[in-house]
């Protein structure tokens, strides 16, 4: 059996998205800044995609900035808010310990440039307490950036409450919603979100394309300078095929969201139930306030990579920690933040499901994992029953 269960790492593009993109590559190759018909046709297609994306997010089309992905959107949002804050003497930034590296490393760099950064703790459930956010706000707080859903343990953060606090305290609020958009309902206006990042390839859209939503009136600084694309805020010839592919995938994801959420969450819960029978295992992150497709376990006494490789031999594709840090030797900062000791954090397994997965696959996973865990414990010098 072949099971792809690493949908938080990236997703397979949906046929609808591939078709939209291929059609565009063949037929709409113009540069939307060009005056001629081919260029103007591209401009029309771009505008339509912008409107579709805006609608999916509950935004206006002129609040949508296309970027090369979630990382760029995060970088631009945070740098921008920091810079405009600094102009008014506000050099304090608030975030959490469980953010994606696109956020954490940007904050780290700003810290070296003279900003002060408060990284909030999260509870053992992997969720930040809005009261902690409120307490952390100072006169000179320029930005609060807190992710919508965590990429490793899938926990959903109390975005509505945090955004409301930010609105009251008049602090700009950004959320990295890369893992949330297309999977759980998001409405930027209704939820008082000032800035939001998303990435196309997390909901069966193309890679290399993302969105930064910026509420009207919130100033935006350029990360990439050059031509006047994206209303002068993001230079570079517009990647129309990818934008169109992303818009198609997002539309599809939002249309099927209710149905998918129920279906995927049911598989998730069965998987959690099944893996919980393994001794000395624990589910990471709150069992309910998590993404419909996220399952994250730690198995004591084993190390994640060898578990992944053995699962791969069985046709089960999963991850341990987030994909982009798999080159690193450090255990996940997210698992450490929820209080796991280093040695346990090394033994994590993330299975992230989508609507393409089936209950049969879930049963297969539940059947295969225990044997592999027990083999690895057997050969481990630190494991004693």
């Amino acid at each position, binding site marked *: 059996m072949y099971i792809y269960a690493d949908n938080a790492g990236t997703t397979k593009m949906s046929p609808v998205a591939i078709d939209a993109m291929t059609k565009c590559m063949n037929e709409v190759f113009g540069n939307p800044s060009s005056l001629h018909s081919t260029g103007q046709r591209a401009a029309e297609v771009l505008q339509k995609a912008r409107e579709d994306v805006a609608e999916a997010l509950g935004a206006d089309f002129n609040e949508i900035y296309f970027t090369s992905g979630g990382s760029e959107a995060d970088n631009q949002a945070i740098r921008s808010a920091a810079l405009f804050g600094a102009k008014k003497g506000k050099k304090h930034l608030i975030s959490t310990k469980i953010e994606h590296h696109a956020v954490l490393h940007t904050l780290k760099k700003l810290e070296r440039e003279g900003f002060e950064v408060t990284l909030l703790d999260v509870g053992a459930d992997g969720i930040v307490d809005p009261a902690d956010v409120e307490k952390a706000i100072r006169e000179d707080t320029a930005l609060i950036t807190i992710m919508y859903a965590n990429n490793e343990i899938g926990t959903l953060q109390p975005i509505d409450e945090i955004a409301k606090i930010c609105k009251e305290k008049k602090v700009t609020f950004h959320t990295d919603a890369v893992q949330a958009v297309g999977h759980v309902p998001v409405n930027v206006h209704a939820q008082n979100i000032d800035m939001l990042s998303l990435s196309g390839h997390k909901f069966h859209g193309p890679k290399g394309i993302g969105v930064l939503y910026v509420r009207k009136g919130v100033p935006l600084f350029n990360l990439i300078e050059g031509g006047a694309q994206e209303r002068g805020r993001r230079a570079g010839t517009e990647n129309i095929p990818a934008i169109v592919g992303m818009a198609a995938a997002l539309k599809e994801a939002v249309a099927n969201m209710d149905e998918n959420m129920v279906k995927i969450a049911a598989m998730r819960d069965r998987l959690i139930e099944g893996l919980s029978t393994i001794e000395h295992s624990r589910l990471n992150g709150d069992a309910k306030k998590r993404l419909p497709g996220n399952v994250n376990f730690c198995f004591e006494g084993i190390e994640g990579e060898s578990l992944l490789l053995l699962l791969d031999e069985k046709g089960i594709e999963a991850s341990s920690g987030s994909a982009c840090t798999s080159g690193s030797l450090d255990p996940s900062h997210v698992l450490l933040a929820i209080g796991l000791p280093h040695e346990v954090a090394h033994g994590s397994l993330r299975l992230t499901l989508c609507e393409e997965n089936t209950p049969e696959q879930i049963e297969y996973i539940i059947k295969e994992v225990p044997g592999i865990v027990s083999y690895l414990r057997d050969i481990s010098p*630190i494991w004693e029953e």
Partner: protein
Amino acid sequence: MLYSEKVMDHFRNPRNLGKMDDADGIGEVGNAKCGDIMKMYIKVKDGIIEDVKFNTFGCGSAIASSSMATEMIKGKSIDDALELSNKAVVEALDGLPTHKIHCSVLAEEAVKAAVKDYYDKNGIAYDKEKFAPGSCPTCGE
């Protein structure tokens, strides 16, 4: 692939895997915080490593490195075993990704630790230099 065929072979089918109840020397290196621990057991007769076993907690290349190291010292003299370098292990495995070189260092150290334990237990004098803990090129530990 991240790993060579050799690495995958030793990972899938580790040689000399297991504990040894009547070991003449036991070495354990690494630490769980780092995510890698190797424990190596040797049986020595007339200066020859007659048998060797290992247990490893760690990534694919850690398991493969320990397996390969046991193969490389089994049946060899203790002096030969002490010559085993992490570089030789890497070469025997047809290479390791840069950030996984530390696993081969651990394997080299596990061998040395087992020999040292054998020397200590048997009151054999040895040149401490030879057992200077090699530092992990990745974490410096």
